[in-house]
């Protein structure tokens, strides 16, 4: 019997490993999958069941053992990521500090489009930042008319803290127009930055 050890792995990795193993096996051969978190158990089970296979699960200590018999194969076109449920959000110890309303140096119109792409990617990646801080002209991205407001709201719902520099909102006279997150001060912001594992300055 083949075994897939997906302990310590997060979605979609356990599904990719399972899919690969299944497709290497013979019909009716059985597979044991080891997983150590409940979300992945649900995701892998749903993945197998929707592809026509029966799964039985038992728990030994902190490890779940999923048993499945190969009945049929899984088409290449099946996308593992589609089976990652949204409760598989991981907030990690990094902070994104956005210091202006564009990304990087160089052509302004390029920076403007790149920062939109950057912020719209954050809700899609599995490791979310703990906090996003908006400073100086960065605050324009957190206003009600921001082109990335939807993504920021989504991140906030997922548990990401969003802070906008109060002095900066005041300077640009935009305090009333903040569309997401909370107004913060330098003490708070410095504390978030100093306690972060990593700080990303896009």
């Amino acid at each position, binding site marked *: 019997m083949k075994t897939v050890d997906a302990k310590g792995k997060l979605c979609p990795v356990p599904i990719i490993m399972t899919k690969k193993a299944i497709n290497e096996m013979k019909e009716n051969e059985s597979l044991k999958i080891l997983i150590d978190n409940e979300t992945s158990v649900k995701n892998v089970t749903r993945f197998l069941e929707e592809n026509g296979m029966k799964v039985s699960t038992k728990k030994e200590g902190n490890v779940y053992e999923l048993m499945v018999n190969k009945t049929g194969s899984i088409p290449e076109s099946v996308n593992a990521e589609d089976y990652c449920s949204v409760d598989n959000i991981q907030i990690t110890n990094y902070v994104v500090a956005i210091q202006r309303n564009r990304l990087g140096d160089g052509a302004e119109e*390029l920076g403007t*489009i*790149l920062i939109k792409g950057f912020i719209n990617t954050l809700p899609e990646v599995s490791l979310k930042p703990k906090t996003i801080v908006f400073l100086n002209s960065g605050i324009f991205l957190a206003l009600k008319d921001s082109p990335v407001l939807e993504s920021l709201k989504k991140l906030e719902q997922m548990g990401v803290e969003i802070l906008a520099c109060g002095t900066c909102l005041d300077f640009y006279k935009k305090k009333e127009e903040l569309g997401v997150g909370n107004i913060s001060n330098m003490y708070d912001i410095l504390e978030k930055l100093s306690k972060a594992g990593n700080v990303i300055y896009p």
Partner: protein
Amino acid sequence: MKYIILIFESIHKVMKAEQILAANKIKYDIIPTPKEFSSDCGISVRIDSSVEDIEIIKSVLLKNNLNFQIHNKK
């Protein structure tokens, strides 16, 4: 929500498309080109197809000589 992804040949075309979409009050997002659709340009346009009329979008972009590929994404 159902999305369509518009993929252009270059970032300049994406910028042009942004201006046209904005001028036509069409709601869009700028996103990195999803990994499954390889492209020379890493930035794409995402449109919520349950809100916007795709045929109108196609016609305004084509009228401005912008060529693009369309993909569906959940």
